[in-house]
């Protein structure tokens, strides 16, 4: 198992990172909306920080695709 793990080329780290970000995106959108807006002065769409997280994750996926 350890030998297999050590022999994997480093490109797999890029694949695993991208997979991790996709899974994180799914988790982000499972968080209930009312928790996201807790304490917010209004419910404007820009205040939905799940959207901010989505942008952030998209940039990361691009970076790990670029530097592979």
């Amino acid at each position, binding site marked *: 198992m350890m030998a297999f*793990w*050590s*022999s*994997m*080329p*480093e*490109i*797999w*780290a*890029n694949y*695993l*990172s991208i997979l*991790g*970000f996709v899974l*994180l995106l799914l988790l*982000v959108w*499972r*968080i*209930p909306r009312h*928790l*996201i*807006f*807790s*304490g*917010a*002065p209004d419910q404007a769409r820009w*205040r939905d*920080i*799940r959207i*901010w*997280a989505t*942008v*952030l*994750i998209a*940039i*990361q996926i691009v*970076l*790990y695709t670029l*530097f*592979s």
Partner: protein
Amino acid sequence: MHGLDAAVIVGYLVVIIFVGLRLSKKVNNAHDFFLAGRSLTFWIIGLSIIGTNIGADSYIGASGNAFQIGVAQANFEWIGAIPAMILASLIFIPLYWKAGVYSIPEYLGKRYSPAVRVMAALITSVVAVFAIATALWALALTLETYLGWPTWVGIMVTGIIVGTYSISGGLAAVAFTDALQVIIMFVGGLVVVWLGISETGGLSGFTATLSESHPTHLQAYLPADHESFPWQGVLLGLGIVLSPAYWCAGQAILQRSLGARSQWDASAGMMFAGLAKTFIPLLVVFPGMLALVMHADIEFPDQSMPWVIKNVLPPGLSGLLFIAIIAALQSSIDSGLNSTSLMITRDVRGVLLPNADPQNDLKIGRYLTLTFLLAAMLTAPMIAQMGGIYQFIQTILSLFQGPMLALLLLGAFTRRATAKAGLWTLISGVALAGVLLQLGLNMLYIAFFGFVYSLISLWVVSGFTQPAQARDLTNLTYAPWRRT
């Protein structure tokens, strides 16, 4: 030094001290001093988080590492930060907010026991003093390289300036000066990128030269047999343990979130910091690679950033980037001082002396800030004998972040973890990490194995000890999907 550079530097110092002293008028009690009277907006919090995060181990150490390994150093800003920052923003900050705590040790104390609270506060404080000392030393080295000041003069001057606004203005002064400092860092850093790329024949010229002479410098991950940063170690140690422990449980980082004017501002502040963090490699990784492409004549990799300032930037702009480095280091020092004095005032003194008058917290907090600053100033010269700045901080963190993260995760997401199991796991986990360090294991694997051991220990020992009542854990666990 060019007169224009000197004017920029003096102007910056005057503004920082003025802002700090002006905000000190709003500090009337410990709540104002430690949590800025819960008044911080999301963008101030976000910039302040970045200011706290970028420090000795970023500007000097990270650019030095980038000189050696290239863009792989950016993992500390991307996979080694962004996922954990998203989790901190959406899960942990709302949890701490709901628990109504001043600090992460206070949360652990409520979730486990006062003994865990004191232990966590003491461990974090000792590491923080070393981190402050390291930042002071890095700053003194920068001043020596750039201005020719002896290191002891650099330490003294920095101590007096940072001490003035941190002791008088508390978290509000720290957060506002941090925000200002980060804006300066980005302006200075982006100018370096622009000029550097122009001097090396545009982006295509820069990447062509780099990939020709150092082909792995444009890869995000290094091979499994790399001595310091094997990709498996980066994913397991940095991505799964060190990063979540730092971003979800780091007191210096999260204190400004707990000083937010609302829970939304606290969460949005961390997410805003994540957006800024994505572009930090332009500021701290690119200069190291630029020094390499420009065949910098330097003795040690850690000199690559000072070399870029001296050789790439024109007068005025070199002063601006010099300020950016001072600012980065100052913001780490001031944040460390404020959070350490908070933990000792409330989490150690408050538990060990339960009858102490809370009215004295402000006075004690200020005295402690001064004490820790003096301790760090005395410790700073010893940092030189402890190896590379970056490696030193990361090695220290790898010792206790695994056990702390295990306590936080099982404590936040399950009702199983018990007080006795928490204390046992914290003590034995740090001891195990110390043994692994003595055996010469890579710090990234130490963090990972310390974490795995602590998860198992906490889970198993909790099965044999008395759990807390479910009703006592309602505000201390995160379970939006749990069926009640």
